[in-house]
């Protein structure tokens, strides 16, 4: 309850609301689609932040949870006639379950070995769906347009999905804040600083890391279902895009890993930058290279990202920026 009085939490929530309210106020479908991507990126980046920012584990294959959630959710909607909301929840829980099982195995690895293992997992799950007939194999799955009738037609369904991703973005911010300000979060940050020392101090590191991994997987699984429901089609190449995982790392580091506001600033900043790079005649063909170079600069010079830099340079903001 005391945590609710934190200005940092409210600033972060306000930032998400400020970004997300525009399409609802204007009833603009076009703005909704643009903002949807930002909201989705906030959820994915904030989720990754739990693992990367608080625990210090770099996951190059975090998109696997988004893709798997999308597959499970769409399968349940398409083949089992589940409603969207239950299917999305099931997508999230399945991703959480995968994270739990994987966490037990690969979170014993550290540093580069863990990062490499996460790439392998993404590729393994992509190969699995490519060969798993109930998920449509390489062809994937497509929703019949009739599905949207249950949600008041396609136009209404897309608004419902937007409200949902907006709410989940707010939830992701609250989750980040709660983790950061809990004993569990302190344990994760101790692991980030020195895993051996954390163990000595009484943190049961395998458990803490596994639960951090699970927490970071559930919301991406839910938004995976929402995205592919909106898209109407899923196939392995779209669901398990390694470059999307790398973009999330860039976003978290750009905004400030380990902070609550960081993923929000990173998502808004990166998406803005990306639009600029994509439409700039100079950069449009090398946009990922530029993003990579940016990541390098951040790692070298401002490892704490925009939030960390602002907090250090402008002490008055320390209480405001969570």
């Amino acid at each position, binding site marked *: 309850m005391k945590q609710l009085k934190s200005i940092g939490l409210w600033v972060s929530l306000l930032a998400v609301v400020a970004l997300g309210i525009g399409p609802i106020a204007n009833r*603009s479908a076009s703005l*909704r689609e643009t903002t949807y991507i930002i909201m989705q990126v906030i959820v994915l980046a904030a989720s990754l932040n739990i693992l990367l920012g608080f625990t210090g584990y770099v996951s190059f294959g975090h998109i696997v949870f988004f893709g798997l959630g999308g597959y499970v959710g769409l399968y349940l909607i398409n083949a089992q006639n589940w409603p969207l909301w239950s299917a999305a929840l099931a997508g999230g829980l399945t991703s959480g379950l995968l994270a739990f099982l994987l966490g037990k195995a690969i979170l014993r690895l550290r540093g580069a070995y863990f990062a490499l293992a996460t790439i392998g997992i993404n590729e393994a799950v992509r190969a699995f769906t490519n060969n798993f007939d109930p998920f449509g194999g390489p062809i994937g799955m497509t929703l019949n347009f009739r599905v949207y009738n249950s949600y008041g037609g396609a136009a209404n369904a897309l608004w419902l999905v937007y409200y949902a991703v907006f709410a989940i973005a707010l939830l992701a911010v609250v989750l980040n804040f709660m983790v950061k300000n809990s004993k569990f979060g302190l344990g994760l940050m101790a692991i980030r600083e020195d895993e051996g020392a954390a163990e000595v101090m009484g943190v049961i590191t395998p458990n803490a890391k596994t639960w951090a991994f699970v927490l970071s997987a559930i919301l991406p699984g839910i938004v995976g279902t929402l995205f592919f429901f909106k898209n109407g089609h899923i196939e392995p190449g779209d669901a398990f895009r390694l470059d999307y995982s790398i973009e999330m790392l860039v976003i978290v580091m750009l905004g400030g890993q380990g902070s609550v506001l960081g993923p929000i600033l990173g998502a808004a900043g990166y998406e803005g*930058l990306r639009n600029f790079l994509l439409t700039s005649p100079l950069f449009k063909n090398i946009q990922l290279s530029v993003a990579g170079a940016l990541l390098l600069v951040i790692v070298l010079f401002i490892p704490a990202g925009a939030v960390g830099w602002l907090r250090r340079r402008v002490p008055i903001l320390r209480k405001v920026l969570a």
Partner: protein
Amino acid sequence: MKRSLFVLLSLLILGSMAIAACGPATTPTAAPQTQAPAPATQAPPASTAPAQPATKTVTIGFTSSQTGSLNVESTRQYHGLQLWMDQVNKAGGVKLADGTVVTFKAQTYDDESNTDRVQQLYTKLATEDNADFLISPYSSGLAAAAAVIAQQYNKIMITTGAADDSTYQKGYTLVYQAYTPASHYLTGALDLLAKTDPSAKKIAVAYSTDSFSTSVVNALKTYATSKGYNIVLFEGYDPATTDFSALINKIQAAAPDAVMGGGHFQDGSTFAKQLFEKKIGAKFVALLVAPPEDQFSQLGDAALGVVGPSQWEPQVSFTQDSAQKAGLTWYGPTGADFTSTYKAAFNEDPTYHSAGGYAAGLILQKAIEDAGSLDTTAVAAALDKMDILTFYGHIKFDTSAANHGLQIGHEMVYVQWQKDSSGNLVKQIVWPAEGATAPLLYPIP
């Protein structure tokens, strides 16, 4: 040094956030006017305007992949569409039943070859840009994402470069396909084999495990089985495969009469080259996508005899006479006119992607003319009734609830690389028989 970097980076972040907050998400690309001369004969038919007719500009909305992996094919498709639009506008536009003369303008964005962007951009086209009609992006995956938006906003969308059957089995009523569906890509090759050598019964199918190629070979397998063929091998490979030795060893062990499958250009041409080097002894090889491309001839002798399906080739000569014989209405320019004006406009030979782009515009033009209005219901009804022959081929759509909008008129043509009298590799059309420019080279030497 560090301080200046910090300042630079923070300015970059703030600047990009300002762009995100203030500017539009993307910059619309105005379609440049081509310098194409209007064809001398058989321009897209356009009605003559009265002295002072009411005029209206119709916006055609679409995305093209100006960046990303689909850039080459998508750009050609865009060129074809652009040529159609310039020609019809130069010819005076289209006259509606109430005397209004409509001309066309394009509103387009870069979709980055990425499904994430497609729904965002098609929503913008449908709502902010008020596009009257939509054309699909290139590729089945992107078109499937765009179709949801087209149907949702009650906009007719002609798809081109989108062969996958499944998009038309989702209950859409306003999405119409210009391409022959993926399920028909290799079935004609089997008909060709059956006609050439009825004793050839053993088929090995090796295919890239991507969505499009898998759809094609699944349909091929069903068709081949129904025709009594023996599928001795049916195996997928990763689209990024560069070494096919193990797969070719399996094919060799199965001793097939014919090898079919493939995927896209890179893997398909590598597969053809390695098949040739291993000398597996198959009498007939038919692969997807790669053989119709001109660069395929760079394989030299490895290209000789390889058959590939194509949506259209410049040598295909559908004419008014062939329309009359088939009892169809002829519409639009001849293939020769299209080819020459395209070359003049873009300084490159048209491919089937270019022809598909042009055909999409032509289909829409004919439907608007037949409907005599821009009303979605009336134009959709005209599309449902359409049964025409163009330079691109026969156009007719399935109107059943299960497959609405699926292309059922257009057929693939099959090309084969052969040697001319000087020993140079040339692309010949070998199927269907009525459009063939040379008999099939069989068995492969």
